[in-house]
């Protein structure tokens, strides 16, 4: 096989048995790898009524055919299981160098099943595989775990691990690699923790075969040249990182403040912006494997109460911990972001859960005594304090660790959770970006911005200009974005490449790499197949049309100011058309003919 190595590891943590399995090429051609192939394996092997923390649940690590190749920005890996936060299919991806290293070590992915009696880590070194004790690592942070494992194995090893948040089953614990890269959303780190699996360590020096060396080189060079020449992927992301979005989303009236309660114009937005991050705290930028964009931020707060160092924050994290909490202290936001990386925790859900608690405090539903502290809008010190309490499930942190929906629901006010399918929406108000509202409502993993990023046409005019305030055309564009994103997530490419290149360039790299005779249309149809497969999983978990919605606030509370003043999200205008374009019935269920067409 080309692109993919063609081999998977199966690790039974209960028995300690490790076996190797071949990947069938016909299956790979149908689902590619990463998100697609990983979800297919998961759905084939795990009964739909399996409890997320049961030993019968499985956790799958999967790379794609382009991962680790010369293709630009192809360093992605994907983790797949049921998501503890949402109960939907859970898949979260990450960059860095771990994914390529796994392939260099001889494997495309790993299927973890069962539960270890005591904490363990998996060590893969050029085809040799062993489970080792991690008892001395349990309780340690991500950086400490990583350093200790590198010292114990190989100085060039790459480490993927959970921190205390995953061990404590925080429902939004992430799986971290190389200390600061995160498969962040949905709580997959809690599944890893439930299996007593602390880490995966890989070291490899092998290669990856491609079908057409000259053709692949030409395709990759063409894509790389286009990315370098593009203003977003060539200059912008490297210079300012994702945080550059703070000001433009705010100026467009789409940056939600104070738990989305008080509008979407933050008068202090510039204090937490990408420009300010560069001016005050940026040490250098950093790229993932084979990436020319280098959007990562190595940052340092040199002095003051939040003196610390690490990486980030990304735009959505800065918003969640900043504007959504009424906080404009970027040093404090950096500090909490660093803590999230150290504990292995999603800063989007964390910040949004803080914001929900702050509004509950405003309404008199929570008090200082009950919280054991002061979680109020604008109090930067409190989010530092409660980040640690949440990761350790200490005191009120135990409630915060279950996310905003369960917190608000336990007090009878679930409407104060700004979430979809119990996962918090990030950073783009669906009242001022109508297409993003539809995107959140239909995302297969709950409130999420990277399943069909309509911010691109609505704000940036890429690849076409679409008025953010209108609903017309959004359903059709979203379907294309969702399908293409499923492809990108399944072949191992970074989603950010799609700012600068499109389906033709991506398809050309995939074809020349794998040798698969797939047309552009067939490749995009594979994205459609993956999307429908995920939808079928969610339907099997009991999700219905009533879950394809938004918090009441976005549907019924008009924005008070800004360019979208008076607007709510007109979801009812878009959802029926979206279902129709997908070939689903009026209840959002895929028609039999559609499933037959997709080979599902």
């Amino acid at each position, binding site marked *: 096989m080309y692109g993919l190595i063609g081999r998977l590891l199966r690790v039974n943590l209960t028995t300690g048995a490790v076996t190797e399995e071949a990947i069938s090429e016909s299956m790979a051609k149908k689902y590619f790898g990463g998100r697609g192939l990983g979800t297919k394996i998961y759905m084939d092997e795990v009964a739909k009524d399996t409890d997320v923390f049961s030993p019968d649940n499985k956790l799958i690590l999967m790379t794609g055919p382009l991962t680790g190749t010369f293709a630009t920005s192809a360093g992605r890996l994907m983790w797949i299981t049921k998501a503890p936060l949402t109960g939907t299919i859970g898949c979260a991806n990450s960059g860095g160098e771990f994914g390529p290293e796994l392939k260099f070590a001889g494997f495309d992915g790993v299927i973890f099943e069962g539960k270890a009696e005591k904490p363990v880590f998996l060590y893969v070194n050029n085809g040799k595989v062993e489970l080792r004790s991690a008892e001395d690592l349990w309780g340690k942070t991500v950086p400490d775990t990583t350093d200790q494992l590198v010292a114990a194995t190989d100085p060039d090893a790459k480490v993927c691990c959970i921190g205390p948040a995953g061990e404590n089953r925080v429902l939004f614990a992430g799986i971290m690699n190389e200390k600061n890269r995160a498969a962040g959303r949905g709580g997959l780190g809690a599944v890893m923790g439930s299996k007593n699996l602390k880490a995966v360590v890989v070291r490899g020096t092998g290669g990856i075969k491609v079908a057409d060396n000259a053709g692949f080189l030409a395709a990759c060079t063409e894509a790389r040249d286009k990315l370098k020449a593009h203003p*977003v992927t060539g200059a*912008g992301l490297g210079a300012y990182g994702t945080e550059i979005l703070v000001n433009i989303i705010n*100026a*467009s009236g789409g940056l939600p403040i104070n738990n989305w309660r008080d509008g979407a114009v933050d008068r202090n937005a510039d204090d937490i912006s*990408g420009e300010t991050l560069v001016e005050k705290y940026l040490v250098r930028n950093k790229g993932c494997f084979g990436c020319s964009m280098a959007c990562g931020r190595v940052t340092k707060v040199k002095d003051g109460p939040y003196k610390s160092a690490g990486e980030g924050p990304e735009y959505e994290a800065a918003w969640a911990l900043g504007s959504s909490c009424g906080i404009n202290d970027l040093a404090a936001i950096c500090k909490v972001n660093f803590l999230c990386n150290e504990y292995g925790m999603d800063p989007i859900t964390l910040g949004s859960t803080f914001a929900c608690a702050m509004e509950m405090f405003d309404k008199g539903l929570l008090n200082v005594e009950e919280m054991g502290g002061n979680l109020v809008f604008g109090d930067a010190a409190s989010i530092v304090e409660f980040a640690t309490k949440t990761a350790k499930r200490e005191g009120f942190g135990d409630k915060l660790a279950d996310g905003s929906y369960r917190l608000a629901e336990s007090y009878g006010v679930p409407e104060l959770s700004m979430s979809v399918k119990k996962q918090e929406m990030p950073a783009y108000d669906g009242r001022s970006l109508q297409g993003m509202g539809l995107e959140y409502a239909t995302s297969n993993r709950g409130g999420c911005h990277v399943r069909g990023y309509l911010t691109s046409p609505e704000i940036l005019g890429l690849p076409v200009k679409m008025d953010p305030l209108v609903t017309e055309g959004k359903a059709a564009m979203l379907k294309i974005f969702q399908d293409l994103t499923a492809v990108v997530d399944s072949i191992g490419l970074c989603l950010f490449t799609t700012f600068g290149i499109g389906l033709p360039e991506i398809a050309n790299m995939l074809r020349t790499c794998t040798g698969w005779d797939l047309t552009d249309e067939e490749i995009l149809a594979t994205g459609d197949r993956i999307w429908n497969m995920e939808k079928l999983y969610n339907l099997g978990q009991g999700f219905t049309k009533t879950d394809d919605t938004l918090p009441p606030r976005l549907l019924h509370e008009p924005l008070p100011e800004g*360019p979208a003043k008076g607007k709510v999200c007109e979801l009812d205008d878009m959802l029926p058309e979206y279902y129709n374009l997908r070939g689903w019935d009026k209840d959002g269920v895929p028609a039999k003919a559609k499933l037959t067409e997709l080979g599902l």
Partner: protein
Amino acid sequence: MIVKYFAYFRKDAGCKEETLLLAPLSVLELLNKLSEIHGQRLRKRLLTADQTEIHPDVIFLIDGRNIDFIDGKDTMVSQDAIVSLFPRVAGG
């Protein structure tokens, strides 16, 4: 009117924002005016070489609305408008 600059436009303009006392004028006229004030470097960022079109990599907002969805370069900018100028940069 208030003109706000973002990302590397700040370096080109030498400021984060400025208040200008100008009679109502079109977007294209305003960009030419800003180029006169701040010089060639900003002009190259904001306008095409013949100075008759807005550079395709400029996002121009008036009170938060993208001029692409008003009247483009012919959109009139009032005296009390807040103008935001962004290069086409992104994240997510």
